[in-house]
């Protein structure tokens, strides 16, 4: 263990280096190899299709997504990270006892508060126009700030 005072040197990272070289080596060897030994026939319409067996897409995928997905993604990250902490706690639930329950309880309360806040602020509202109106009411323009001053 490190705490016993042994100085860690770069040698200790040797396994990581070996792993890295292996990963690079695998790609460097297999890709050219498969190119060498594979047989190549003429291109057919089936081969050019996105899916060899499956439903062909009718239209190109949309290039621009509504920004509301961004907000949802951000909120998802917040609650997803909470789950990570809960997993660690759940795996050690019997050992942690009431200490764990209290700690995770406080933590969950904070996350719930976040949920309540974004909910009340209308961030979960799927109606983009209504949300935009709410946001406009909530965030003033520089002019409004001037007037308040």
């Amino acid at each position, binding site marked *: 263990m*490190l*705490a016993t*005072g*042994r*100085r*860690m040197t*770069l040698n*200790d990272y040797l396994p990581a280096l070996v792993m890295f070289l292996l990963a690079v080596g695998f790609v460097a060897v297999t890709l050219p190899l498969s190119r060498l030994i594979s047989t190549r026939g003429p291109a057919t319409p089936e081969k050019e299709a996105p899916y060899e067996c499956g439903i062909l897409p009718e239209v190109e995928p949309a290039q621009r997504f509504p920004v509301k997905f961004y907000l949802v993604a951000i909120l998802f990250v917040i609650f997803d990270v909470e789950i990570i902490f809960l997993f660690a706690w759940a795996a*050690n639930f019997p*050992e*942690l*006892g009431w*200490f764990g329950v209290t700690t995770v309880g406080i933590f969950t309360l*904070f996350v719930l*508060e976040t949920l*309540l*806040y974004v909910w*009340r*602020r209308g961030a979960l509202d799927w109606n983009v126009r209504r949300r935009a109106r709410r946001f406009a*009411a*909530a*965030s*003033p*323009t*520089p002019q*409004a*700030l*001037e007037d*308040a*001053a």
Partner: protein
Amino acid sequence: MVETPEISLVAILPELALTVGAVVVLMVAVSSRRAATYLPWIAGLTVAATGAGLIAQYNDVAANGFSVSYAGMIVLDNQGIVIRTVMLAAIAVALLVGWRYVTGLGTRGGEALSLVFLSAVGFMLMASSIHFMLLFLGLEVGSISLYVLAALGQRAKRADEAAMKYFLLGSVASAIFLYGVALLYAGTGSLTYLGVFEFFSGDTLVFSDGLLSAGVALLFVGLLFKIAAAPFHSWAPDVYQGAPAGIVGYMGAAAKIGAIAALLRFVQVPFQSVIESIQVPLAAVAAFSVVLGTLYAIVQQDLRRVLAYSGVSHAGFLLMGIATGGVAEVQVLFYLATYVLVLVGAFGIVSLLEGSGSAGSPIENWKGLGRRSPFLAWSLTVFMLGMAGMPATAGFIGKFGIFTRAWSGDLEWLVIVGLLASVAAFFFYLRVVVAMFFEDGDGKTPKLGWPAGIGIGLTLVITVGLGLYPTPLLDVLTAALG
């Protein structure tokens, strides 16, 4: 059962009070239509509760001496209490002078208030942390809150630019800091201050290990970035110029308090026995900051950029006191306390003149303010003289203490650089004073409300009072820290 870490509520009382305040503010903001009328009460109560928490901590330390809790992560000692008190004073003055900004944000005022409290929690944790991971956590909680504060409620190009720059460069600095922590752990096998201290004092090998030196260097660079010391200051002028005037003073002050608190502990505990090795680079950064900050401030045409570059040179002066190492940090803390209050006060006046959500403040706008609003003009004059280190202001006592400390710490050349820069600094500090009193202009006439009036008045009293009669505070500090 696993062993649970020892919990000491008294060790985190101020942070607890601020966190509860931040949560309550948010909940009230979304659950009541008349939230705006409650905000002053919540803000006042939170500040009062934090103050009460600090008093409880002081009594605890007076009775039991310093104590370590949370598995060796948090220390409760007088130095932490002093720094947190400075932080609380900065919050109180900042909220008073910037209250118009909070109310001007409308229904989002609660968010601003909550973010101010949360950033204070982060930087306060930095002051009491004795563990590098907790230090990083505090740094991030504080910094991220400040990024959001910089971007809050603005739709101006200038403000967006400032917020974006602050966020991107700040994140890079945090990453650099974290990489330093990682390398330090790889080199020493410990993340606690005490463990690193034991490693350095037990092992005769001093900084021969490249990995370790790189780690320590990155660690310091990350924090030097946060206090805007040259050559890591490039973000400061744009942010000080573009962020909302009502809150930018607090942003500058809070980040400086947190990072200086951490640097102080660095030279006290983990890197105490290798202070000789880090003294030269720290002193070089200090000298560079003082000189560069002063020279650049002279050529600025915007008061907010002047204040930003003066902040760079003040970071240099603070580093001057830190580079000497040692434990009695009275001078550094005195300097820090007086500087951040004057900074917040000066930006309060800027926000009164330019509007609390504004960006930029050209010197032209200040012409003739002496006639239009004598109180504000005289207050700004006192603040400017205080920053310059004029005798009879707290700035003089602070600079004098720092110079004495550096001189006795065998950094004579640094003192001479600092003295020369201080003399040159009078030029740019007095330029706005000249504009206010001796040049004609017909800019805006600021309206002074009572919260801003109290905030500026308080700062005035502290600046002049501590300049004329600093002995009681210095005695208290010496008794507490000695």
